[in-house]
């Protein structure tokens, strides 16, 4: 199915098609990895909006990528409940293992590392979302294994 028809199908669930902007941007990002100018144009056309409007919405939300990102996404919670247990050590282990700082992508384009706010898994710190799946109770010792998994997978 084309992106446009997928978007129109989703838009049909709402009383007003503008409500489908977030789902539409999500679909576009799933397809292309990030939201390019062209992606915004496709989304805008499918919903009868302007690309500028869609961009203004996308830029408000943390999960939309306005520039290219790595093939895999590693997001480490650094809010207080994980923080007071071991979040900083876990984040540093990822930095060492990947050779990049939070906010960066490895030079081969394989992995992007991000520090993020509370992911809603505070009783099993530290929470790391790997490609949007939660890993619970991650310790620095788990980090080499997770990176290995990503590099081989």
């Amino acid at each position, binding site marked *: 199915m084309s992106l446009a028809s997928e978007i129109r199908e989703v838009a049909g669930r709402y009383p007003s098609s503008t409500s489908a902007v977030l789902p539409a941007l999500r679909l576009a990002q799933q397809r292309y990895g990030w939201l390019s100018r062209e992606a915004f144009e496709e989304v805008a056309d499918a919903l009868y909006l302007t690309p500028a409007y869609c961009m203004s919405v996308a830029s408000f939300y943390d999960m939309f*990528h306005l520039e290219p990102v790595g093939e895999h996404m590693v997001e480490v919670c650094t809010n207080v409940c994980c923080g007071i247990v071991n979040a900083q050590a876990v984040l540093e282990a990822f930095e060492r293992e990947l050779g990049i700082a*939070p906010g960066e*992508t490895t030079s081969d384009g394989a992995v992007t590392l*991000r520090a993020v706010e*509370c992911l809603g898994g505070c009783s099993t710190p530290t929470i790391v979302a790997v490609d949007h799946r939660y890993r619970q109770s991650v310790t620095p010792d788990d980090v080499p294994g997770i990176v290995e998994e990503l590099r081989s997978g």
Partner: protein
Amino acid sequence: MAETTIGAEGTPLVLAGALEEPLRDLASYRAVGGYAQLEKARATSPHDVTEQLIQSNLRGRGGAFFPAGRKASFIPTPDKVAKPIYLTVNADESEPGTFKDREIMLRVPHRLIEGCLIAAHAISSKHVFIYIRGEYSAEYQVLEAARIEAEAAGLMGDVTMVVHRGAGAYICGEETALLESLEGKRGQPRSKPPFPAIQGLYASPTLINNVETIATVPKVLEVGPETFAEIGAPPDSTGTRVFCLSGNVVRPGAYEAPHGITARHLIYDIGGGIADGRELKAVMVGGSSFPVMVPSELDTALDANSLGQKGLFIGSGVVTAIDDRTCIVQFALRVAQFYMHESCGKCTPCRVGTRWLVQILRAVEDGSATDNDLETLLDVCDRIIGKCLCVLGDSAAMPVASCVTNFREEFRAHLEHGGCPLGADSSLAGLFAPVDQHSHTPVPQEVPV
């Protein structure tokens, strides 16, 4: 990989039947009496259902503790409005320390759906939206699968239900920002009035409730409103809460217990006490948006009135134990950074004030501030609290002010010591806040082709 610990004290309501294994499919939910209350509710008048909610004194579990039945009664009846009536469920759960709605959706998704359909009947709504935070993928899949199953079983009647995914913005948990976001806009709060009950989604009457509130509704009908009203700490804090216990405790987890158990009981008896033989220093109660509790207040009952007498809040049922390895200045700084990152920017005291809080706290933390700056910090808090369009501003200022007031000596010690006296031993030393990335988008050195 450790799973979340789930437990209960007394008879669980929201998590009933799901403590051992999740009740994800329709058959297993039906086996514990699922959807029987929906049938019962649909056989009575909408007004009757609302009356039962009022009688039970079920209050909102999302943070504001507003009586759920009264809120439902504000929705005009269909004969009074020409517009559709909407029910919107708040599953945006992003308050630091909160993970109960996630457990409810993973363990008893059908109880949430049954609650939605009962609440929809109470306000004669045919359209339900569940706004779930964008980061919740597994939760979305479980909930959507349950919705499809319920629909296939003919349980929806003439009601349509859409599970709508957010995209990463704490402020979209604020009810009017949620509505804006659901309309396909940037998630910036609206000024109230008009309240959503009169002009909510697409300017139509809209009821908004938290996941836990709605998932409690079938149980209110099952045990009966009079019985429900006697559970917990009546008359105001009725029923149970799924408390979110986290931090430096031996057994963190989601524990359903009646309102009114003490923080001490939750942390020490249920949670096994402070981990690694450390001392308790402070407790984040309700969420990061509220003043912190100090150890001398541990015997306070976890209900709205008892907490209120101490200037504390029940919020979303958070109890995070903070031990003596934590620098309280760094804690306040990290909390302030969160609100600065999440401020929607619509009003000045919050947009600018949260930045000031972070700047001053940074200077205190590295020891470059002066005694005067502590007064300025409290002054900035004062200029934020009660002066913003939504409660996010207060949520930044209240915890910071309470840290300064309760731990003034520790703040001073940073100034005298020229930095954190705990040094690298502080559990929060050097903690990286995403706000420091200055960019919502990681940029690769070389764009891979």
